[in-house]
């Protein structure tokens, strides 16, 4: 008998009224009782920092954990482009409805209407809140907030701070959090990694952590646990994510009974600087705006090693313009990424590794002049030439797709609570709003919507409805979980292997990008499902024991995270194999139109697949949450 019950708990009533109604009906915790409630928030990126600060302002006692040395280092800091909101300041026809509709459509009809509508509704409050904190958004001369159109949107709804939007939003949330730390309402635990979730009487009641400096394994108890631990793109080893991003917190929660939803929905961003060799440790994203003026091409001939300027126009293949005449170089992220991979697989890729395509500004420079191009993209060109030592004004840029964002994550209901009572999941770590593909500038929006405006209400409702007690972290469940955590670490210390975590991680990453990346097939996924457990076995056999536990030890940290990635990769492949359709970023080669476009199967797969852990060596069990699209009409995407 399975323990997983999926009830999305969507409030009744018309779509536009659901959130209002929820707020009217929710139960409140009295100020006196709030002081007695303790909430653990794991992760202090955009989602976690905003949630921790807001909960503390309401009067809850918050324990905030991060493996970073400061909340300001979270991966959110790297977001460049901007954050969406339905303000319609530009009077170009935007509205809550339109943002909602675009998000559902962008997700290829694989997300919940009620959640997405609420996201669009609260988006406007986020901008107001951030302005109030002193986030220096770009302004027009008259002092009004500036907007740009981003990621192919037809309206200008993206707010930005130069190319550092994530940084400024995170510093805003961090400053609010810092204020609460100073009052003592939040207790901060830095350089502390959550290694397990503790469940008491069927509810999430605490976590077990490892102090990354002293190695101490310790339990912490609370009335509820919030995971805001980010995404898992690093399962591919090379991605645009920060090096430390990992799936451990979410995965350990999964192993304790939380369902993982749509793990195969991962976004591969088309415009990244290609790897320069085997030493490459991570990939750098280049803003997608470059595709507005750059033309993408590869040589027509396989293995053509001539420098770009020696290849005449007739021998170049502007493949996006050829295949998608109306969208051309602005074809959606998944299509551009896949096409780049295809031409490289055909042996027509450029650059030292053969995994790259040209993004050429020569025509734009001819047309508009170098100065205009410098004004538009100067800082991006500088960044590129800084990394590659090539001058994009004279030599075409080289780009290649890189894993960037993960739409999948822990399953949550309308309250952002997982199927484990008391375990809430926010930000990139949950699966909730982006369906099978995420629109540009919507992740920051979702993280802050969850943290500032949704969780602080829904968590209160949960606490108000739950019998509370003063639990201390010394009960049997805590001791048991601690023992298991220690045993897990010990498992790596006994062998006499010779390979490093990085070498295994690289191999897993290559396997995953091939089998479960831009294009997937039943055959490839079945192969991966055979290979991953073998590789995992080799990993346990051949890994070099990571050594000291009572000190800073990056080898030990990496081994632990990688062990979870290995098991998680299997769940991803199961998910990709079971979803026998193409949708959004999930492209199953068997399901494409004659033009090579993704072909959805709404009849059978208009749903969420949520996976339940059954054991390391047995396949996970699938649970289905059907998606009822009541407001939006299913439509076929057409980018010809």
């Amino acid at each position, binding site marked *: 008998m399975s323990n997983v019950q999926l009830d999305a708990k969507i409030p009744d009533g018309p779509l536009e009224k659901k959130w209002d109604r929820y707020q009217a009906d929710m139960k409140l915790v009295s100020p006196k009782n709030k002081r007695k409630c303790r909430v653990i928030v794991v992760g202090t990126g955009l989602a976690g920092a905003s949630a921790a600060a*807001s909960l503390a*302002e309401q009067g809850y006692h918050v324990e905030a954990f991060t493996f*970073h*040395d*400061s909340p*300001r*280092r*979270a*991966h959110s*800091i*790297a977001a460049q482009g901007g954050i969406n909101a339905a*303000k319609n*300041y530009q009077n170009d026809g935007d509205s809550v409805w339109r943002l909602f509709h675009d998000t559902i459509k962008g997700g290829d009809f694989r997300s919940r209407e009620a959640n997405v509508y609420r996201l669009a509704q609260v988006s406007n409050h986020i*901008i*107001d*809140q*951030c*302005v*109030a*904190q*002193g986030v*220096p958004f*770009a*302004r027009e*001369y008259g*002092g*009004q907030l500036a907007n740009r159109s981003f990621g192919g949107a037809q309206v200008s709804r993206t707010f930005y*701070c*130069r190319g*550092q939007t994530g*940084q400024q939003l995170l510093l805003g949330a*961090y*400053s*609010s959090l*810092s*204020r609460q730390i*100073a009052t003592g309402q939040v207790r901060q635990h830095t350089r502390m990694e959550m290694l397990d979730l503790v469940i008491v009487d069927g509810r999430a009641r605490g976590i077990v952590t490892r102090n990354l400096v002293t190695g101490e394994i310790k339990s912490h108890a609370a009335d509820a646990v919030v995971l805001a631990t980010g995404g898992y793109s690093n399962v591919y080893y090379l991605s645009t994510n*920060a*090096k430390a991003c990992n799936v451990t917190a979410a995965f350990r929660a999964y192993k304790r009974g939380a369902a993982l939803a749509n793990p195969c929905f991962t976004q591969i961003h088309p415009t990244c600087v290609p790897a320069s*060799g085997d*030493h490459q*440790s*991570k990939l*750098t994203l280049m803003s997608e705006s470059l595709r507005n003026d750059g033309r993408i091409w590869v040589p027509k001939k396989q293995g053509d090693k001539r420098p770009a300027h020696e290849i005449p126009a007739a021998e170049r293949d502007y493949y996006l313009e050829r295949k998608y005449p109306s969208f051309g170089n602005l074809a959606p992220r998944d299509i551009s990424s896949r096409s780049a991979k295809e031409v490289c697989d055909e042996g027509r890729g450029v650059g030292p590794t053969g995994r790259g395509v040209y993004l050429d500004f020569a025509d734009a420079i001819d047309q508009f002049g170098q100065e205009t191009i410098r004004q538009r993209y100067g800082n991006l060109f500088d960044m590129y030439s*800084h990394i590659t*030592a090539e001058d994009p004004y004279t030599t075409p840029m080289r780009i290649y797709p890189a894993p960037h964002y993960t739409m999948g994550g822990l399953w949550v209901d309308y309250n952002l609570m997982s199927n484990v009572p008391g375990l809430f999941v926010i930000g990139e770590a949950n699966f909730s709003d982006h369906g099978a593909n995420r629109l540009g500038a919507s992740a920051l929006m979702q993280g802050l919507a969850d943290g*500032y*405006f949704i969780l602080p209400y829904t968590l209160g409702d949960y606490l108000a409805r739950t019998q509370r007690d003063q639990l201390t972290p010394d009960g049997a469940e805590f001791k048991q979980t601690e023992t298991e955590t220690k045993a897990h670490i010990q498992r790596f210390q006994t062998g006499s292997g010779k*390979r*490093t*975590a*990085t070498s295994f991680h690289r191999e897993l990453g290559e396997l995953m990008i091939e089998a479960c990346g831009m294009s997937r097939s039943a055959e490839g996924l079945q192969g991966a499902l055979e290979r991953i457990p073998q590789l995992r076995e080799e990993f346990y056999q051949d890994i*070099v024991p*990571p*050594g000291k536990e009572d*000190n*800073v*030890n*990056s*080898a030990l940290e990496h081994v632990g995270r990688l062990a979870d990635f290995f098991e998680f990769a299997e769940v991803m492949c199961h998910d990709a194999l079971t979803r026998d359709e193409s949708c959004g970023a999930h492209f199953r080669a068997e399901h494409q139109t004659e033009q090579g476009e993704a072909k959805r199967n709404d009849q059978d797969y208009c749903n969420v697949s949520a996976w339940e852990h059954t054991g390391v060596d047995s396949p996970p069990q699938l649970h289905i949450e059907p998606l009822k699209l009541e407001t939006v009409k299913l439509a076929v995407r057409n980018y010809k």
Partner: protein
Amino acid sequence: MHLTLHVWRQNGPDQSGQMVTYPARNLSPDMSVLEMLDHVNEQLIADGDEPIAFDHDCREGICGSCSMVVNGLPHGPQKASTTCQIFLRNFRDGDDIYIEPFRATAFPIMKDLMVDRSALDRIIQAGGYVSANTGGAPDGNALPIPQHTAEAAMDAAACIGCGACVAACKNASAMLFTAAKVSQLATLPQGEAERGERARRMIAQMDQEMFGGCTNQGACSAVCPKEIGLEWIAKLNREHIRSKLPQAT
């Protein structure tokens, strides 16, 4: 290319450390300095030795994690760059490279190249915020902010909190870091209400954390990966004086 590294190794805060020499062979000029350390660490790990500890994360110059002194310069020999964004093509084949932690009383060494920079967080906690609780904020456009004001605030706000300014300063002063935050919020109308109090409290915290005073040498700004300008220190001084005036908030 081949390089010879001399790296500071220190087991813990209370222990003594020393420079240790490592040959770094078969490197690519396209590697970053951090990738070179990865390369050396791979060998150390494979040999069962302890890897060199260093902070890093984004590897694209924005998180402020990486923090080491390379050949005598915080972050290394390239202007406006963090260590993660400095590539080996800046060095010559056969070079010796010296890598040390950021050194300052307020930044105790935790291990090898890893230092504790939580003092910077405590300066922010002392007042580097606008007290705006979530909810009830007025419409973002209700308060027009001239473009040049927003841009100036953004110039200051670009600080990544790496602490290179402290490491470069002979007094180990955190004036540039503190100035950046105080100035961002003093430039914007949202910061007005707490303006004086903020400057006073952040400066007091800075002193309490054992950062040194500023003698206007400008080493901080010279090594700053985000090129935060010295004019903000002038502004901080002005804010501090202003906060002592009777009418100041």
